């Protein structure tokens, strides 16, 4: 299980809600259910971090 990737969804969901989770799925192309089986690879983590930063900036809470 990719705990780190799933963690991004949990944190962002609590912070910014449903829209943020959808945007994260759109940008990373990995849904939270797929994130459970996806590896916590450096590339994936970097992609999620970059996407989270973009979403926070876009939704005004960066």
């Amino acid at each position, binding site marked *: 299980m990719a705990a780190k990737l799933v963690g991004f969804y949990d944190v962002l969901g609590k912070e910014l809600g*449903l829209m943020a*989770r*959808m*945007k*994260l*799925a*759109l*940008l*990373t*192309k*990995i*849904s*939270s*259910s*797929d994130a459970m089986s996806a590896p916590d690879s450096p590339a994936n983590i970097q992609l999620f971090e970059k996407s989270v930063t973009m979403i926070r900036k876009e939704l005004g809470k960066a």
Partner: protein
Amino acid sequence: MRISIKLKGLLLGVVVLFVGLSAVLLTQLRVRASGYDELLQNPVRQADLARVAQVDFKKQVQEWKDILLRGHTPEDLAKYQKQFHEREAQVQEHAAALGSAVEDGESKRLLTEFSEAHKVLSAKYQAAFDAYIQGNFDFKAADKMVRGQDRPPTDLFDKVVARLDARVHEAVEAQRMSVAHHRNLALTIVGGLLVLLVALGFTVVHSITSRLARLKAVSDRLARADVDGLSIDISGRDEVGEFGESLRGVHAAIKELSTLAAGQASAAS
């Protein structure tokens, strides 16, 4: 490679092929036209000149007969004698011109022989003419002196005309063969290039349309939010690949939405 580059490349290929083939065909046309010009300038012209000289000689013989049959008054005699000598000079002039123009050795030899025979015949005509005058217009005696004498030069010239006609036929046949050969070669090359272009175009178009069809199928399922078991395996570094990549994001978002909706539904129940 991007689709726009592939299509532009294909179009450029068609244009280059068309321009190249046009240039080759125009060059071939010019070469064939110059071949026919050469044919008209040499063998055909020489054969025509030979026929003109042949007719001149026949007219010269006719003028001799006019002298004998109609030259009974001084005026008529002077007229036909003048015409006879004009024809005689024309025959020599045309035979000499033809002799210098023809390349065929045998024709050259026959023309030289003809010129010599014609000069001998001219001397005989002159002797017969003198006898005609001195014999008080005795045309029978004059005719007897040259009867049948024009046959050997006529036969020689007939041979020249026949040889030159044969050369014209040979040259025309050679030109026809050359044209047919180059036409077949051009058809083979054009046909081959056309087949190659069609195959290349078909491959490019098929690679685009088949992937677009897969993209449409994925898009239709996403439009229905039918994401269960959906796998988007459309990749590539072109526009279709980029579109497939975008649809992967949409797919993930719909899945995420479904997951959240399912979670809320179970929490509510």
